[in-house]
């Protein structure tokens, strides 16, 4: 398994796309810090970018990588290797290399601008952590889609649709339902609804770090109790982990049964 992780990781490290991805974040980090000239403000602006972009790039890379390395995968399948080892290995290799691009690409400019000495170091660290989580989640979702669809165009279509659904449409439906059922107590519902969308969950996790918790508390006791304590943090991270484990488990079971 480690060999496969290593091969797919090195393969990606050599590929142009990882460098472009890395360079993009590097540029983004520097430009943002140059424009804001203030580390803490840049962290807030960065949040919007991370929450929307890392899922998108994770999805596209995941689907692309699977279809591109299909022949190599078939070659590997001919070897005496376990199927789960091959697919999980590829998945981990890809997700790690993407996360590395993200962490290095954003880490370097912020280090240059002195994030270590500033007070927002933990905010920044949690931002990166959430970015890594999102990458792992969306690459695994993309692998799932690609495994289930042999048609490339269809696979890409569904992957993009999934991103659109989770990043935009979900929030829209969520917002409308909150407004429609305004007369009912909604705080528990909205808590649960957040848990079902990794993008929403990560966004709220970062917002909590950025001290919006008081704003949330404004709406009702349930929010404050949940998000105001470390319990909320722990539960949220557990749910994010679950968002990785479940799709990965499905990759494994799907790969076992799939007819190549």
């Amino acid at each position: 398994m480690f060999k496969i992780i290593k091969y797919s990781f090195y393969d990606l490290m050599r590929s142009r796309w990882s460098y472009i991805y890395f360079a993009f974040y590097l540029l983004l980090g520097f430009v943002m810090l140059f424009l804001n000239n203030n580390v803490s403000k840049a962290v807030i602006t960065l949040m919007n970018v991370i929450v929307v972009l890392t899922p998108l790039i994770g999805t596209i890379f995941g689907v692309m990588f699977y279809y591109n390395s299909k022949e190599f995968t078939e070659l590997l399948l001919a070897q005496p290797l376990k199927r789960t080892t091959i697919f999980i290995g590829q998945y981990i290799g890809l997700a790690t290399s993407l996360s590395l691009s993200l962490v290095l690409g954003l880490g370097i400019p912020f280090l240059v601008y002195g994030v270590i000495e500033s007070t927002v170091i933990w905010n920044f660290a949690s931002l990166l952590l959430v970015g890594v989580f999102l990458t792992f989640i969306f690459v695994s979702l993309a692998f799932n889609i690609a495994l289930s669809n042999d048609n490339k165009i269809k696979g890409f279509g569904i992957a993009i649709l999934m991103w659109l659904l989770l990043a935009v449409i979900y929030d829209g439906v969520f917002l409308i339902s909150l407004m429609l059922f305004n007369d009912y107590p909604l705080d528990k519902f909205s808590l649960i609804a957040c848990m079902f969308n990794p993008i929403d969950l990560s966004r709220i996790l970062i917002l909590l770090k950025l001290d919006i918790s008081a704003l949330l508390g404004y709406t009702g006791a349930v929010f404050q109790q949940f998000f105001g304590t470390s319990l909320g943090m722990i539960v949220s991270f557990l749910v994010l982990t679950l968002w990785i484990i479940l799709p990965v488990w499905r990759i494994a079971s799907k790969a076992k049964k799939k007819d190549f």
Partner: protein
Amino acid sequence: MRNILFIAFLIFVFSLHAKQIEVCATCTIKSLKKAVEIAKSGDEIVVKKGFYKESNIVITKPVTIRGENNPIIDGGGLNYIFQIKSDSVTISGLKLQNVQANYTKDLAAIYISKSKYFTINNNTLSNIFFGILIEKSQYGEIKNNAISSITKQEYNSGNGIHLWNCNHMMIHGNKVSEMRDGIYLEFTSKSKIYNNISTKNIRYGLHFMFSDENEYYNNIFANNGAGVAVMFSKFIKIYRNKFVKNWGSASYGLLLKEINDAQLFDNVFDENTIGINTEGCSRINYKYNIFIRNGWAVKVSGACYANKFRNNNFISNAFNLSFNGRINDSDFDGNFWDDYAGYDLDKDGVGDVPYRPVKLFSYIVNKSPETIVLLRSLFVDMINFSEKVAPVFTPDNLLDNNPLMNQVK
């Protein structure tokens, strides 16, 4: 010549009268209470360094009580320390401590009633119920005192400086912390409150009602449980104050209720849940204020007419403005909004496209507060944008026609 003679005579008479009485452990007079009893009008009582367990010292004649090297006066429980019922009393340089909370009487370290021309300065008050409680008095000065306690609950705690039915008072240079309300004024007019620092009070840093024509300036209100609340007052001026870090689910930088004809300028609102919450306020001018890192910079709740916002800075707030309802009678002009996305072709520093301070999302959050969980989501940015292009829900005349391109300095 006769004048000089008269003045000389006056000085002579005063030097005869204004005695100095010393109080200390080794003096002939060992108790402050005794000293006050034997003192005549205009005398000065000097309290030397030491520990005095005394309470309920009633002052009925104009005397000066001065502490040397911070003598400690310990109230020791359920009683006032000083009760001042005369004009022209001065109390300075004392350390007053231990006044217990009471549910029937407003016990205070210094209680002043129906007095004029008094001065309370450079005292330190600690572990007390009410700090300085003043009723029906005029022309008093309260300066450079440090007042603190260790209050936990609202129901069994008192206010730092409490004024009821007074006028022409000067309150300045005081530090008040961990009381119920830092500075409290009721029916108090024509007074000046400046250079005070009011922090960590469990309710309000400053609270006043029915207090007209007062001026509040250069004060700092930070980390108070509910910020600053001012109500039912007219013709007040609030300027150069700082309202900082009043974070909490029911916390305001400044809560304005039924305030009319007021001037608010050069204030800084930094990191408050709600910078200014205004309700039923009319004819208020907001100028040169800075709103930075607040949840809501300004929240307008209703029945507010003819308010003017000019040359204010709005920077890094989650919401710049929240409006209840579609009717707007406020006038925004020439402010700096950090999320203004317009352009300035003629380079005169004023944006060429009007700015809409009310976002659709802030309107939605007003309607159903739970939607706040969607703050900063992509979908919310999209609906905000579409509302900006074609306003449907937000008041369409609510515009800043001359948004500034750069911060007001």
